[in-house]
């Protein structure tokens, strides 16, 4: 559309080639192999047993009672963390939007968890915060005279949700803060003079302004939360039972703990399908917002 001659159209195509071809390879090769593995018998503990097994890996994976739980947990995790982080991120951003003493430092403190690596996040919460005897949360319970909660045992999925929310809330907050800075101040003042309440301002001025950044936050969070792994691996190992097993962890468990690559691959195919359903949903919902 832009450059008229053949030569430069070729150049345009060449510009795209590295990105498209490497990503295609990165996607297609594992995909094809995964699909292939999902139809054969492939167990690392029984290297001699092999051969085509049809749908039985899928059957095995689906009928595994953990499968339903894993899908449910994946979606629950995703939904809760997105809702929590967007709500609290927005509230915090609104709170610290106007100047007050130490605003800059408060902002830095608030966003810090976003730069913490998942492994540290997981260990920090597992031990120092949630340990039922020595942990900070247990000390608080004791201080108030209640029975300390054994977080990872009794509320495993909720614990993971807390960790992830702690990590992603700063991200949402950071983006909302930046977005709020570009709000039309005069519009806000005018509406104050007109006697608009905070809720009216929120509804008719802030929310429309934040629609796009909100889409961005949701989109990026979904991308990363669909495949949460380290936090679960390190803290609960998916347990107790399957209480905190998501799809990512289930596949990992099948492949590397049960050594059943075939079943794990069938699970991976499910994960890919689930991801694509969410992706299509999301792109429908949000893609438009991101464009112009």
């Amino acid at each position, binding site marked *: 559309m832009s450059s008229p001659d053949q030569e430069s159209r070729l150049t*345009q195509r060449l510009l795209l080639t590295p990105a*498209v071809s490497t*990503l295609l390879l990165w996607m297609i090769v594992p995909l094809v192999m995964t699909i292939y593995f999902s139809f054969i018998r492939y167990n690392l503990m029984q290297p001699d047993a092999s051969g085509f097994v049809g749908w039985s890996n899928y059957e095995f994976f689906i009928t595994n009672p953990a499968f339903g739980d894993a899908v449910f947990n994946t979606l629950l995790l995703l939904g809760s963390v997105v809702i929590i982080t967007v709500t609290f991120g927005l509230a915090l951003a609104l709170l610290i939007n106007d100047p007050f003493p*130490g605003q800059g430092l408060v902002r830095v403190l608030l966003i810090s968890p976003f730069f913490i690596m998942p492994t540290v996040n997981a260990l920090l919460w597992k031990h120092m915060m949630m340990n039922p005897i*020595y942990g900070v949360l247990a000390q608080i319970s004791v201080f108030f005279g209640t029975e300390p909660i054994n977080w990872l045992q009794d509320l495993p999925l909720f614990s993971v949700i807390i960790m992830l929310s702690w990590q992603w809330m700063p991200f949402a907050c950071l983006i909302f803060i*930046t977005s709020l800075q570009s709000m039309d101040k005069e519009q806000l003042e005018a509406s104050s003079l007109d006697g608009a309440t905070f809720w009216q301002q929120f509804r008719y001025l802030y929310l429309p302004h934040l629609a*796009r950044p909100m889409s961005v936050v949701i989109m990026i969070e979904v991308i990363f939360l669909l495949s949460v792994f380290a936090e679960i691996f390190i803290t609960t190992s998916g347990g107790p039972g399957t209480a905190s097993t998501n799809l990512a962890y289930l596949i*990992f468990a099948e492949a590397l703990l049960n050594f059943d690559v075939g079943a794990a691959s069938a699970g991976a195919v499910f994960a890919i399908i689930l991801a694509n359903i969410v*992706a299509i949903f999301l792109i429908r919902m949000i893609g438009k917002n991101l464009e112009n």
Partner: protein
Amino acid sequence: MFGSYEWNKKLVIRTVASWALALLVFFPILFMLVTSFKTELQAIAVPSLWVFEPTLENYTEVQDRSDYLHFAWNSIITSVLSTILGLLIAVPAAYSFAFAPTKRSKDIMMWMLSTKMMPAVGALIPIYVICQKLGLLDSVFALTIIFTMINLPIMVWMLYSNFKDIPREILEAARMDGATLWDEFRQVLLPLSMGGIASTGLLCLVLSWNEAFWVLNLTSANAGTLASLVASYSSPEGLFWAKLSAVSVLAIGPIVVFGWFSQKQLVQGLTFGAVK
């Protein structure tokens, strides 16, 4: 600092609430930082100690036992190299999407993003097998390539949205002035989008530094990054909080400080141009 404010009840409440919440959010990190200077016994004292004689012995012990610098070096190498490589691939693609779009551009961009939604576990086994066959298990090279690939879609999107903010006419004017594609890029686009390219690079650096899934599954002693160093303190020595804290502080310190300094830059690119 306090002089220029017109104090009223609302401002007091806002200030107190903001500080309280910020400290609450930051508390776990602070706690960890403090713990890293305790002895193991002090670390698990109940109630937690806040006044004690700080010691550096955890830090020295971590270095003695697990060669912190080796892991740190791997972290630096993989994240820097993958960032550079990613920019080299993503910039031309983003240029093409932003300034020479075709009917399929939008679809290709959406497809790129959708590869990011595919859970990494879906690709783990094949990638593991491929690395095994090629002798690339536990190699810095493979890790760099993987980091590049997992960050590429987001990099393309960020750069794209950034380039989109540059008026097309400016590049067209350069073309009319006789600029080749390279001149156009080097003398016009690059200076104008330095901020966006920098923020894209920063984010890629943070994401690579913090990446854990591939690191845990594909590396061990040789190519492990700080993420795996931390994980190695996980289960068996779980209760050695002081050392765990020290190693964690060492692992996240560089990137957190880096993040503080670059937060403004970062968010600008992160928002896909949504924040004007």
